[in-house]
């Protein structure tokens, strides 16, 4: 049998039993839909974070007082550690400070934001071309006391009434005047933030000479990985342990990506289970369909169809069921991912992006066709092996 004849025959069979075919592919549609939207969003977020990280500065090295994310630090950095890092060859600007979260009060409302304090001049030097631009007002100066700069989200989205430059917010009942508002960055952590001067911050949160982040920039022409390595060595000697991380932007991005990658794989794995159920559905339909068409199989065999012809007819039929399900699932999945993206952007979560690529589309289509072929293969093989007289006699 010619391949296009086989395809025509398979199509006619699918068309013949529309309802059955439709119900069968619903399983595949749901599975593919779930997989496509989750892969799309998972990778979208990863890509966004990676890009943002790179934008933040490929010449920066971040030093954190813990070996891994999520593990509470065993010690914090002090001025002494800052000096150690500062002396490493290749280090240009250095900034140290503290980030955490706190409640701020404005207009009688209290909201949780992430706060960060550092020496304003040092902060500006390190982040001078990293997208932390002022939308309104001005940056903090080193001699500012009860003044603050707030993130875009804090100003515009968090409180019922927008905060304007010159307004006053309260942290731990201390009043701070807002002197500047940052431009939108695109993720909640950075946008719902407040930045303070280090002297006030240390006093307010009671962390004198304790820092949980050091960021340095590397002099132009220096090898960033080499500098990072040297910082590591110097800190190891000075602290006497290795309970800290020295991360370049690239490494930082990779760490976050790998965590998100694991989550993505897990979630997609769950979605794959629904696809498996869909595959079993196809298998079942093919089984039923072959039982219904035992007589046809017998006739075809009597007319000179070889076992492989019969196999091809049914396998291609189930392959197309899989493919149809895949196409519908793909379209719905993309629509859903895009919908989530649009919705998330409206809510200010700029990091939620739908990642759609040709690899994803072609990959999913091939995959769903194969799922169909594989789930149809075993019923088809048993059908193709049927003895023609038994099928013809079974009236």
């Amino acid at each position, binding site marked *: *049998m*010619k391949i296009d*004849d086989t395809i025509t*025959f398979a199509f*006619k*069979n699918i*068309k*013949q039993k529309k309802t059955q075919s439709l119900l069968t592919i619903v399983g595949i549609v749901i599975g593919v839909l779930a997989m496509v939207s989750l892969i799309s969003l998972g990778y979208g977020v990863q890509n966004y974070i990676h890009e943002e990280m790179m934008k933040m500065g490929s010449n920066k090295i971040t030093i954190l007082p813990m070996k891994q994310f999520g593990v509470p630090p065993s010690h914090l950095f002090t001025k002494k550690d800052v000096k150690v890092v500062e002396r490493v060859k290749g280090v240009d600007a250095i900034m140290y400070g503290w980030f955490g979260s706190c409640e701020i009060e404005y207009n009688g409302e209290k909201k949780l934001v992430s706060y960060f304090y550092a020496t304003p001049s040092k902060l500006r030097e390190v982040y001078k071309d990293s997208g932390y631009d002022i939308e309104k007002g001005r940056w903090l100066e080193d001699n500012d006391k009860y003044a603050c700069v707030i993130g875009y989200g804090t100003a515009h989205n968090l409180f019922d009434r927008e905060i304007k430059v010159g307004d006053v917010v309260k942290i731990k009942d201390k009043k701070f005047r807002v002197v500047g508002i940052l431009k939108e960055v695109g993720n909640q952590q950075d946008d719902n933030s407040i930045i303070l001067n280090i002297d006030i911050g240390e006093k307010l949160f009671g962390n004198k000479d304790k820092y949980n982040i050091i960021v340095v920039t590397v002099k132009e022409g220096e090898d960033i990985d080499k500098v990072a390595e040297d910082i590591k060595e110097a800190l190891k000697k000075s602290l006497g342990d290795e309970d800290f991380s020295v991360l370049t932007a690239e490494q930082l991005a990779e760490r976050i990506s790998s965590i998100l990658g694991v989550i993505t794989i897990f979630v997609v794995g769950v979605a794959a289970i629904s696809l498996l159920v869909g595959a079993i559905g196809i298998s079942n339909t093919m089984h039923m369909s072959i039982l219904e068409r035992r*007589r*046809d199989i*017998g*006739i*075809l*065999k*009597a*007319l*000179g*169809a*070889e*076992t492989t*012809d019969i196999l091809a007819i049914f396998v291609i039929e189930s392959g197309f069921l899989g493919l149809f399900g895949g196409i519908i699932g793909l379209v719905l999945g993309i629509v859903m991912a895009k919908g989530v993206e649009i919705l998330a952007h409206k809510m200010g979560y700029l990091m939620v992006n739908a990642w759609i690529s040709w690899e994803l589309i072609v990959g999913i289509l091939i995959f769903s066709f194969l799922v169909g072929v594989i789930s149809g293969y075993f019923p088809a093989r048993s059908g193709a092996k049927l003895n*023609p*007289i038994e099928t*013809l*006699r079974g*009236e």
Partner: protein
Amino acid sequence: MIKLKNVTKTYKMGEEIIYALKNINLNIKEGEFVSIMGPSGSGKSTMLNIIGCLDKPTEGEVYIDNIKTNDLDDDGLTKIRRDKIGFVFQQFNLIPILTALENVELPLIFKYRNSMSEEERRKRALKCLKMAELEEKFANHKPNQLSGGQQQRVAIARALANNPPIILADEPTGALDSKTGEKIMQLLKKLNEEGKTVVVVTHDINVARFGDRIVYLKDGEIEREEKLGGD
């Protein structure tokens, strides 16, 4: 053309062995029209299946057009069925989702695959429908839009598609009224006169009488043979 030599077919039913055919010897010459008669359970369908290479004998030898079919594997038997034999069934056995013409094209597809153009295939199929005396306007009808007699004509056209020397018919009139049945038998007779070897299995003596010879089967054995006069 067809030769059965000491053919025995047994089935196992639990411990018991059932003889469907016992030591059958039958010789059908080229161009002959043979009717096989017998009550149900006499083994006539088993015999037709063995001649038609749909089934293999337990013992004995089967020759189709001088080819010994005992030694052939499944694909070998498939090729014999495809090239040497045209089947006509009681229930017509057309593929319901295909049109009359497409049903007739099927054997051509299986035989020629890529080597025959679509136009050629259509032409051949239309010619076969004409030989089976089905009006051309029915060519694109689905089986369920055709009467029983018309369906059987499509089935006969399909049997003719690969121009096989042998036509095997299993109760070809069983699902038809007697008038239509007679017309179908006349068609088979005409094809026989044009050179086809025809074997018909039936329990209807009026059908059997169209043959040159009637072979009576009983309990898996040839009870007797009757040569008919006429030509």
